[in-house]
């Protein structure tokens, strides 16, 4: 690195004007929630437990004084979901939080390992009711046109002519390879069904979504339920989960939240099993969260990437343009 590059490394990667727009959006978000009586809360970023999602990698540290060995692990939260559900279980009513979340190993033009998340819960809502309110929020903050919803199944039937809930791995491979470039074959032989679906969605479908107005994709495969509740459809189950896309960018993920502690624990254990096969570290299960879950009122919630929201509002092409100091020069 040249001296000139070194000496300008202290500068913010966002312009001061963008940072003013950023502050304006944060204040518009808080105003939106205040008008609707949604309570702003804060929960710990450093916790004794953390999410088990096999594809989210956490940062950990320990609670200790210098020179005194400690085995007390703490985890930076990949999302404030567990703590916020404990508040909901304690009758908080509708709540939101705008906070930093931390995901290890994620750097790119849409990713920074520490990023700003909006997490929002509405008791009494299902995922479709929450989609309506998320759309109002985007209309007020991004000045977008009213959005539209499409099911995950309809999306794959339109683009690839198979039902993602019932298709076998072999069917998916066949349909997909007609679209995927032939030279991809050798490398994607090892894809399982969900990896295929995620690859097809990310590569071919996502870039087309939400070009005119926000697009809400709902009812995901059971195997991608995460923390959403399941619903029986004919011969299969769907997860009552949705994703919102604006101009090809995935902006947020929402659930009609699972309230069943036994089912939740089973999913955690499944996650840990997958983690074990991937030789990922195994975090302790969040026992406070599991204990609170039986008191969780029926509700829907969404996590939305605020840096990406600001990218869309300012027409930025990289997350760096909306962060004061990105990972590379933090």
């Amino acid at each position, binding site marked *: 690195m040249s001296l000139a590059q070194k000496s300008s490394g202290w500068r913010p990667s966002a312009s001061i004007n963008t940072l003013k727009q950023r502050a304006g959006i944060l204040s518009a978000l808080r105003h939106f929630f205040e008008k609707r009586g949604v309570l702003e809360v804060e929960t710990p970023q450093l916790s004794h437990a953390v999410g088990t999602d096999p594809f989210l990698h956490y940062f950990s540290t320990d609670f200790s004084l210098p020179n005194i060995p400690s085995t007390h692990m703490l985890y930076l939260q990949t999302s404030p979901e567990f703590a916020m559900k404990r508040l909901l279980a304690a009758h908080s009513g509708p709540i939101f939080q705008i906070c930093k979340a931390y995901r290890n190993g994620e750097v790119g033009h849409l990713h920074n390992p520490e990023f700003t998340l909006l997490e929002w819960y509405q008791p009494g809502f299902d995922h479709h009711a929450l989609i309506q309110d998320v759309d109002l929020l985007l209309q007020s903050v991004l000045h977008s046109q009213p959005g539209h919803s499409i099911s995950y199944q309809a999306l794959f039937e339109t683009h690839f002519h198979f039902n993602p809930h019932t298709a076998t791995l072999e069917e998916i491979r066949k349909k997909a390879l007609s679209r995927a470039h032939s030279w991809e074959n050798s490398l994607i032989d090892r894809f399982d069904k969900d990896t295929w679906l995620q690859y097809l969605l990310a*590569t071919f479908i996502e870039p087309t979504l939400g070009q005119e107005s926000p697009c809400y994709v709902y009812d995901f495969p059971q195997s991608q339920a995460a923390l959403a509740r399941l619903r029986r459809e004919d011969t299969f189950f769907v997860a009552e989960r949705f*994703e919102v896309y604006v101009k090809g960018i995935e902006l947020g993920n929402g659930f009609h939240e699972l309230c069943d502690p036994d089912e939740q624990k089973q999913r955690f254990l499944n996650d840990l099993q997958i983690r074990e096969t991937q030789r990922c570290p195994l975090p302790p299960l969040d026992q406070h969260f599991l204990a609170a879950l039986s008191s969780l009122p029926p509700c829907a919630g969404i996590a939305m990437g605020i840096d990406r929201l600001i990218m869309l509002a300012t027409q930025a092409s990289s997350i760096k343009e909306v962060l004061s100091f990105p990972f590379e020069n933090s």
Partner: protein
Amino acid sequence: MTMYSTNEFKSGLKVMMDNDPCSIVENEFVKPGKGQAFSRVKIRNLKTGRVIERTFKSGDTLEAADVMDVDMQYLYCDGSHWHFMSPETFEQYAVDDTVIGDAKLWLKEQDTCIVTLWNGLPLSIMPPNFVTLKIIETDPGMRGDTSGGGGKPAKLETGAVVRVPLFIQTDEIIKVDTRTGTYVSRAKE
């Protein structure tokens, strides 16, 4: 055997893919909020020069390619092969037409080029960004015209043809940008 995993992929990294040495052009991190992360990689095949796009699962690996860029002096052409010498080891390398490619249009004896070696064998030649070459043939232009507008073709001592301003004459020496194949300026002898 050195292996690189997707999180080490960065521009310029030399790796083996489909048994050919390649150079990574661009690596984009793609990750659905819930689910598998991917690396969408643009990669240049160093044998063919073609850039292709491929998707890897995060954590996938590629074998490192033993590819080195070495500064070498261009010595001469014997009609079928072009000869280069490393000024450090004095080792000489001969390359044929397929390896030299378009670089032959810009090579003047004694000029320093970048020779890319794969497992010790020349894979490609990159001429200097700027070369000074003599014009051996061009239509007589109008001496008074210094505007540079229009231009005309001029044949250089290496056989390359570039567009030059009308005031440039045969036997003059000019500076050429080899990356674009365009005239830059007059050059001193």
